[in-house]
């Protein structure tokens, strides 16, 4: 790698300590030593089941939360060692889009104010006229009309709201947009519109995306590279299409198999599994081993680390090579 990546996530961990009213407080590791990079103009997708730490990762990258350990380097600067003032300036370059288009817009603010909110970070406060112009610009570039600036969020449909949220994220012309389930709440027809919009933006403005979702098809559609997460750990990365076509981690396989598709009618043949017992994410071994059809003794003893399996492809599995050889 000659030039340094736009976003460089280094062994990032986050523990949530729950102060129970009783007894010792106990901590959950929501994010466990995740390392990942995003280059300029790249769309990196993150998939994984609910609760695997996707949103935690997003919040950390957006510097809305502090990690237990690890670093997030943006443009070479470690976000968590910046002074608050510098961090605020830095925010000009990365913004976030949230999942729920109904909850992420303040119902009592007009679209103009909502979209203009991130301009707060600019060193030079733009004038009213400039703001108006910028907002109008943004609204048009996400497929809304400048005239919409004077309306309230409740006057818009879900898809339109998500566009407003995207306009807000783009108003400072950031280099990176962190999209946490940005299309999950949308209906099919709207989802397609928004996905197209994101791809346009990447093309026209060179915006990078860290695109988080639980929908494999969406990632497959939009992302250049994908990271699969399981229980707070990154278990596989690689070019999106390859990862789903030929998974190197059994969990990716399970995910891909479970994804419903209109190309598969009726029930898949090999779905006769008993539900897995909940496995503790202990440090001792692979967290997936209890659900894993390929588990071997080593999986319980030694935790697999993320490693290069093929060019551009990494997996954290002791049996990744076997998977690679066996093909599909």
């Amino acid at each position: 790698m000659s030039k340094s990546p736009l976003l460089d996530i280094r062994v990032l961990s986050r523990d949530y300590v729950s102060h129970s009213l009783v007894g010792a407080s106990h901590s959950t590791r929501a994010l466990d030593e995740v390392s990942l990079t995003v280059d300029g103009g790249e769309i990196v997708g993150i998939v994984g089941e609910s609760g695997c730490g996707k949103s935690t990762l997003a919040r950390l990258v957006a510097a809305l939360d502090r990690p237990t350990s690890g670093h997030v380097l943006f443009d070479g600067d470690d976000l968590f060692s910046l002074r608050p003032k510098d961090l605020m300036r830095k925010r000009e370059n990365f913004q976030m889009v949230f999942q729920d288009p109904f909850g992420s817009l303040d119902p009592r603010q007009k679209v103009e104010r909502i979209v203009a909110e991130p301009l707060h970070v600019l060193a030079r406060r733009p004038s009213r006229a400039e703001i108006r112009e910028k907002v109008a610009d943004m609204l048009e570039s996400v497929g809304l009309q400048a005239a919409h600036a004077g309306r309230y969020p409740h006057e818009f449909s879900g898809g339109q709201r998500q566009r407003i949220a995207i306009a807000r994220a783009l108003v400072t012309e950031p280099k990176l947009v962190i999209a946490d389930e940005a299309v999950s709440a949308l209906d099919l027809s709207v989802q397609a519109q928004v996905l197209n919009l994101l791809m346009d933006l990447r093309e026209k403005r060179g915006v990078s995306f860290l695109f988080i979702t639980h929908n494999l098809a969406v990632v497959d559609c939009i992302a250049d590279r994908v990271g699969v997460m399981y229980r707070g750990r990154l278990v596989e990365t690689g070019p999106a299409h390859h990862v789903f076509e030929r998974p190197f981690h059994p969990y990716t396989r399970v995910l891909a198999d479970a994804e419903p598709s209109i190309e598969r009618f009726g029930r898949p043949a090999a779905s006769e599994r008993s539900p897995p017992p909940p496995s503790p994410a202990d440090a001792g071994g692979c967290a997936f081993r209890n659900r894993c059809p390929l588990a071997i003794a080593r999986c319980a003893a030694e935790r697999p680390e993320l490693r290069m399996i093929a060019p551009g492809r990494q997996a954290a599995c002791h049996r990744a090579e076997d998977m690679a050889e066996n093909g599909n």
Partner: protein
Amino acid sequence: MTTAPLLSVRDLAISIRMGDGSLTPIVTDVAFNVEAGESLGVVGESGSGKSLLSLAIMGLLPGVAEATGTIAFEGENLLTASEDRLCHIRGNRIGMIFQEPMTALNPAMTIGDQIAEGLVWHRGMSWRDARSQAVDLLDQVRIPDAARRAKTYPHEMSGGQRQRVGIAIALSLKPALMIADEPTTALDVTVQAEVLDILDDLAREHGMALILVSHDLGVIARMCRRTIVMYAGRRMEEGGTREVLTEPRNPYTRGLIRAIPKRVADGGRLQTIRGTVPGFNRLPAGCVFSDRCPERIDACHIAEPGWTFLNGNRGVRCIRAMEEGNQ
């Protein structure tokens, strides 16, 4: 058709009384049959009236909604049946599984009791017997360690497990018809697959008819033999699932299928349906889809097309299909 179907819905229309007292029609001209043991999928985007439809069959429409038409279940019109009669049918003959596993269970009652309650209520069983049967049911929906789990509260279970409890409740009285209103949208894919499998197994084992409501075409493809596609409270298309998904006859269905995200060759874009679902108080004149339809013709704006029966058990609502059908 020699014998009457298990469920026969005719001319169903549902309206909502708005804050200012006016009635807004939501669901219009819905009709379909469900035979015993058959599985029917209902797809449609959010707000297209799927839930109202399911609730209407259960007789549990919210107070502001009014339904007309007939919903004949085993020959009895549920819309005119007495509340007592409905109480008897609900749970007993028709079971329902709800969308949100997190909120559909009473947080203050053990899951065993929630399952047993229906048995006590309808079958007059003792709580003791009902509870032991509840444990069996939990077993059937593949909840491990069922006897212990029966004594726990919903919050101690995961979403997938709760949804299984919901299935167990609906299943407890061995209803002839099971309505599942988006039973897996709140779950992630691996759990969704498991829940769908269980539902499938049970429907088959008990010979239950199943109405599965979803907005996920993939789920419908996996589960249902027949499918109805709904838009703005209207059925747009009906037929065998495979035919509907592979040879859609309505432009809306076609649009939906094309909008499913999939890898598109280099930088290509997904095809979309332009515009958004209109609110029920501002539907376009003529065909409700006419303002968004890429294949519309002038006639589309004039009158709403009726339901056209095509060959086999297929039907569609579209002027162009009417032409084709009449050919």
